[in-house]
Structure formats: structure tokens, C-alpha cells
């Protein structure tokens, strides 16, 4: 009898303990994310606003309790645009137990691709190089690749151009970052895209482009597609203005129209090139603060909340950073909502499920983010902007590249 009583008491006590445990709120979790990028060194002019965008959005997510009581801890390390330092940072992040990784440059993304595969860690780079996706399963580009952007731009030219086949020159960065889309554009031409690529120029550190512009002009080039960073484009635009070879409107006869993709444009280009940037055409998937959109309003409010200066607040790379952080937070939020553990594997699954009805609509882009096992380029939609009176203004409606889909 005594034994039965003891067992009963034990049962009751255990039930109380279990009941009390069930009533206790689950302990708040902290999820670790790593970001390695160029805060100093080459391209730090883009890296700094990008890092602030990531930092601010994660702060915002914590402050607004977007993940309930759970917190995000994003470690941000400078790699000075060097792959070996990126590798060191990545190893440090792995030691710290990150579940998601944000990378930056094309070189380091290509260099660490095998590590991402081995570690099975979902990675969102700031590089939109199409080659990042070759032989890789864990790299997710935030927006359509440079190739997609450039082919989209070429399609716009073929649509708007009047006359015979438009003659095009490419002005690219002398690296894998710059060279990446050249072959893809050539493939699109072979697939029927009606443009003639007259010359591909890999720029150096020239401070004068007179000879190059004269040569392109003598070859009858009508459009110059730029894929590099802002400063060489600004130098070229200034020279084109001085030589009077820049078109004052799209496709002006006998003149050259300059167009560029994501990293060529933005406010930094206008600041560097001044008046010469007028009528520069630029495409990206991000919304700009020079336009009245929900994304711009949220971005400016966030910048104000976290005390960012005007330059950062209005930078498209700040938008870029915010958007990448938005994808990360959304993937965690969705994983959490399904009651799954926040681990690499589940985040990877959740990112791959971000399509169709589950597509993610961050207001900072002109289209939805869609990922699947066969499509790891986030926003496919592009918007064309044009410099008008010293600011980028959208021109025409959003578009996606048809030929890019054909050549993939």
C-alpha cells in the first residue's frame, strides 16, 4: 500500500512539473549569421552602405520583434576585398556556429563555392555573377545575374532602337566580375538577339578615354553597355561629354547612348560624373529613394531611425544590404512558423520553397523574390532608370529578360 502511495505521489509531482514546464514560455533563441565584405579597400564605397543596410535591417528585425523574442546576431567582418581574408572570416563564422552566410565579392564567392557546398550553408552574396551558380546548390543570388541584367538591357535597346541592327560596344571591368556576362550576351546574339557586338573593352585605370571613344565612334558604335564600378564609367561619361559623342536622348543618331547594370549606377555615379551623367541609362531590380515608393519610404525611415547620413540613406547599395537581410529574416521567420528548427538544412529548404504563392515580396525591389532548386536568382524583374536633372528616374515599366531564359 505504501509503495502504491509513493508511486501516486511521484506521478502527481511529475505531472505538476510537466504542466509547469508546458506553461513556461520557450527560451528565446539567438540565430547567428555572418557577413564578410569590403568595408575597407577596393569597392568599399559600395561595401560600407551595403554593410549598414544589413546591420540596420537586422537591428530593425530585433527591435520590431519580427521573430518574436528570438534575436538575430549578425557578425560583420571586413575582408578588404581579399579572398584569403574572406576565407579566414568564413572559418571564424563557422567556428561561431552561423546558420546562414552573406558574402560579397565575385572572386571570394567563386573561391569559397566548394566550402559552401561542403558545409551545406545557404549563402547570399552581393555578387550577381551567373558563374556563382555553376556547380553550386547553396548560393542564392538576391536578384537576376549580371548576364540577365545585361541581356535585358540589350533587349530594351533592340525594342527601342530605330533603324538597322544596333551596334554595341561593351565596357567591362578587367576581372571575372566584368567578363562574366560577355559570353552570355554573345550566346543571346547567337540565339537571335538582334544586336551587333562591335568591341569589348576591358578598361584599365585610365584617366582619359579619348582614344577609346574616338575608336568606338569611328566604328559606328551606337550603344555602350557598361559593366563595372562607377568611377571608370564616370571618367568615360565625362570624356564623352567633352568630345561631344554622348547622345542627348536615347539612340540619337551619330552619337553614343551609354547604359549600365547594377554596380555602374546610383548616386555615386552622379556625384562623380556630374552633368555628364545626364541620359545615362541604368538597370537594377531595386527601388530608389529618388522615386516615391513604399520601399524608398521604409528605407529612409530606417536610415533615420539608425542615424545614417544622407549619402548612405540614399545609396542603392544600402537598399541592396537591406534586401539581402530581408530574405534572411524571411527565411528564418517561415522556418520558425512551420515549427522547424533554425538550422542550415531547414533554411535551405525554406529558401528553395520561396516561389509561386510563397514568393517573397520585399518592398525594396521592383518584383518578388523567387527561388527554387532550379532557379537561384531572386528577383527576375528589372527596372530601367535614366538620369534626368541630376537624379535617377524610372523610365517605362518593369521587364524581365526573355533571351536570358532562352540561353540558360
Amino acid at each position, binding site marked *: 500500500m505504501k509503495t502504491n502511495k509513493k508511486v501516486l505521489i511521484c506521478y502527481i509531482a511529475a505531472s505538476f512539473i510537466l504542466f509547469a514546464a508546458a506553461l513556461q514560455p520557450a527560451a528565446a533563441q539567438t540565430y547567428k549569421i555572418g557577413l564578410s565584405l569590403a*568595408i*575597407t*579597400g577596393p569597392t*568599399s*564605397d559600395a*561595401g*560600407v*552602405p551595403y554593410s549598414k543596410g544589413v546591420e540596420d535591417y537586422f537591428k530593425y528585425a530585433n527591435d520590431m520583434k519580427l521573430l518574436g523574442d528570438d534575436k538575430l546576431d549578425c557578425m560583420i*567582418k*571586413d575582408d*578588404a576585398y*581579399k*579572398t*584569403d*581574408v574572406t*576565407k*579566414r*572570416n568564413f*572559418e*571564424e563564422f*563557422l*567556428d561561431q556556429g552561423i546558420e546562414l552566410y552573406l558574402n560579397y565579392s565575385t*572572386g571570394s564567392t*567563386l*573561391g569559397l563555392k*566548394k*566550402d559552401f557546398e*561542403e*558545409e551545406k550553408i545557404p549563402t547570399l552574396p552581393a555578387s550577381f555573377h551567373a558563374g556563382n551558380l555553376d556547380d553550386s546548390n547553396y548560393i542564392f543570388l538576391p536578384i537576376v545575374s549580371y548576364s540577365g541584367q545585361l541581356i535585358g538591357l540589350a533587349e530594351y535597346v533592340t525594342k527601342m532602337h530605330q533603324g538597322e541592327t544596333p551596334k554595341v560596344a561593351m565596357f567591362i571591368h*578587367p*576581372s*571575372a566580375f566584368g*567578363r562574366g556576362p560577355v559570353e552570355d550576351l554573345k550566346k543571346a546574339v547567337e540565339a537571335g538577339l538582334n544586336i551587333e557586338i562591335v568591341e569589348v573593352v576591358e578598361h584599365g585605370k585610365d584617366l582619359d578615354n579619348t582614344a577609346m571613344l574616338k575608336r568606338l565612334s569611328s566604328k559606328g558604335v551606337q550603344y555602350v553597355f557598361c559593366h563595372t564600378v562607377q568611377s571608370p564609367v564616370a571618367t568615360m561619361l565625362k570624356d564623352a561629354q567633352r568630345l561631344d559623342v554622348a547622345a542627348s536622348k536615347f539612340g540619337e543618331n551619330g552619337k553614343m547612348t551609354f547604359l549600365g547594370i547594377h554596380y555602374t549606377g546610383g548616386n555615386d555615379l552622379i556625384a562623380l560624373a556630374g552633368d555628364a551623367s545626364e541620359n545615362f541609362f541604368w538597370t537594377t531590380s531595386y527601388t530608389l529613394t529618388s522615386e516615391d515608393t513604399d520601399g524608398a519610404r521604409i528605407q529612409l525611415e530606417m536610415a533615420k531611425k539608425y542615424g545614417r*547620413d544622407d*549619402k548612405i540613406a540614399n545609396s542603392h547599395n544600402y537598399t541592396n544590404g537591406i534586401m539581402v537581410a530581408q530574405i534572411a529574416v524571411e527565411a528564418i521567420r517561415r522556418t520558425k512558423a512551420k515549427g522547424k528548427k533554425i538550422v542550415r538544412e531547414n533554411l535551405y529548404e525554406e529558401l528553395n520553397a520561396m516561389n509561386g504563392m510563397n514568393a517573397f515580396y520585399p518592398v525594396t525591389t521592383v518584383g518578388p523574390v523567387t527561388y527554387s532548386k532550379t532557379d537561384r536568382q531572386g528577383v527576375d524583374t528589372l527596372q530601367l532608370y535614366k538620369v534626368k536633372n541630376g537624379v535617377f528616374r524610372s523610365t517605362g515599366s518593369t521587364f524581365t529578360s526573355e533571351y536570358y531564359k532562352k540561353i540558360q
Partner: protein
Amino acid sequence: MAVNRWLATGNYFTSYRDEQRIFATHLNRLFFFAFLCCLFVWPLLFEVSNKYMLVIDNILIAIVAIIGLNLLTGFAGLISIGHAAFVGVGAYCLASFARVIGDEHILITHAWPVMIILSGLLGAVFGAFVGLPALRLKHLYLAIATLSFQMIFEWTINSMTFFNQGQTISVGRVFWFTGQVMRADHYVFWYYVVLTVIIICWFMASNLLRTRYGRSLIAVRDNDRAADAMGMHPGLTKVYAFALGGFFAGVAGALHAYLYRGVGIESFTLHHSISYLAMAIVGGLGTLNGSFWGPLAIRTLDLQVDNLAEKAGHIFSANLSLATALRPLAFGLVIVLFLMFEPRGIANWWRIVKSYTKLWPFKY
């Protein structure tokens, strides 16, 4: 020779053989082997994060390269501003194999010691070829010839699609007796490999310097006409000095490729050549132990300046580029200060410390 073989308070050499001993006393030998034991044992006792193990491995690889540069510039007196390109030759030798036969080929993953030696030999061939102008050129003119090799190397790698236009070429994970070396053991494994390579290189270099081939390097450095008059061949000596430097650099390049599991041009640029030269100067040109101090000092400085620049980068606006400027400023300042106040490098401090402890507890 001193009567007491364990301690010696002065030089008591009675024969050339005595003078050429690697270890002056038994105590020196004992300390050396105890130190080696510590180097081999500490990773088993303390757990170091992969990040720091990577940093340590990097320093060790730089030591291998600097032993070569020290033989070339310090002992033979031939300035090379293209040492990173020689390191690159070794790395790209491995990368070329990876491109042709695949990065997971058994030759790369299993026969890696052979690949490392092969890379060293190719480095030696390139070194000897680049050293040919040394037959006619001296001093700054020779330095410019090596600089041109650096430029040609960078241009070739950046332009040729075979070399992936400078972008990373992957190198597979190697195998050891216990199986494939995975990430958990990767950095410790390469620590032991590079440490073993350093010990072999150090013994090779110190023994070389005791032979007539080694002494001819110093003789040609000090006065090549006098060396010629003494029956040495200055031209051949210079070419062979370049080949030696190239060999060590090639080995370092292959080790770098295996450690990072990939080869990209950005690790072998002119900036890296200057950095190697700085390591040799700061460590102490013409001293073997300087080859250890230099990489240790410069890589540690790099790491500290990286941290400082990162902190500054978070504070200063990107437009000011102050954070970016910190790195070259600190680097340049260290070189200038060493050239001004300690041209003999850290190796000289080591010499003073050794002299002091030799007489201890008596006054130095």
C-alpha cells in the same frame, strides 16, 4: 672547441669543422629539439580555432617562401621584386594539373608530396630562367628584370582562359593514411605538413651554407669580381641562387594551394612580392633565423592592422578612405622604421638576446 660541450662563453673553435657546426653546444641542440617537440605537441594539447590555425599555417608557408628569398636576396645579394610570382608558379603548377586531370585526381589528392616537390622544381626552372638577366644586370636593373617577370606572370594568368583568367581554380582535399582530410582536421593537418617542410628546408639551407656552394653565394654577394678571381663562377652562382629561391617559392606556392584548396591570382600580385621583401628585411636579410621572424612579424602586423582598419571602417565614412589608408600606412611605416633603426632586422635582436643569455648570470 670548448671543454664543456654543454656551455660555451666564447668562441673556442680550433678547426673549420668546429666553426661550421650547426649547434655550437649540446645545450643549443637540446633547446632546439625541445622547441621542435613543443611545436609538434601543442596542437594536441590546446584547441585552436580554424581561423587562427589558418593564420598560423599562413605564417609557416610564408617562412618557406622567405627562406628562398633570403638565400636569393640576403645571401646572394640579388634583389627580387617578383618573389610572389615564383610562389605563384608553384601554385599554378598544381592548378594546371587540376585543370587538366581534374582537381580530385589521385595525383593531386594522394600523391600530394610529389606534387609539392614538382611545384618546387618548376619554380626552380622559372627561377633559373628569370635569373638569366643576372648574368648581365646588377642591383636595381636586376630588380626591374624581376619586376617585369612579376608583371608578365600576372598578365598571363589574368588573360589565359586555361588559368581561369585569374579566378580560383579548385584543388581537391588530400588523403592521409587515415582517409580524406576533412575540414575539421584540415588546418591542423597542413600545420604538421608545413612544419615538416620548414624543418627540411631549414636543414637544407643551413647545410647548403656550410658547403662551398653556399659560401660562393656570399662571396658573389660581397664582391663578384673577387669571387671570380677566386675561381668561382659568378654568373652560374647567380642563376643557381635564383633557382634555389624559385624552388622554395614553388614549394610554398603548392602548400598555399593545398591549404586554401584553390589558386587565384590575387594571392600572387606585386603587393605580395613587396610584402615578401618586407618580411625578409624586417626579419633580417642574410640570416636564416630572420626568415622565421619576418613572416611572423609582418603577418601579425597585418592581422592587427586588419582589425584596426575594420574598426576604423565602421566609424569613418567610406569617402574618406581613412580606414583603407591605414593598411599601407602601417606597413610602410614599419619598413621605414626598420630600415632606419634596425637594418639588420629582428634577427639582430635575437642575436643580442642570445649573447646576453650566453653569459648570464654575468653582466653582458
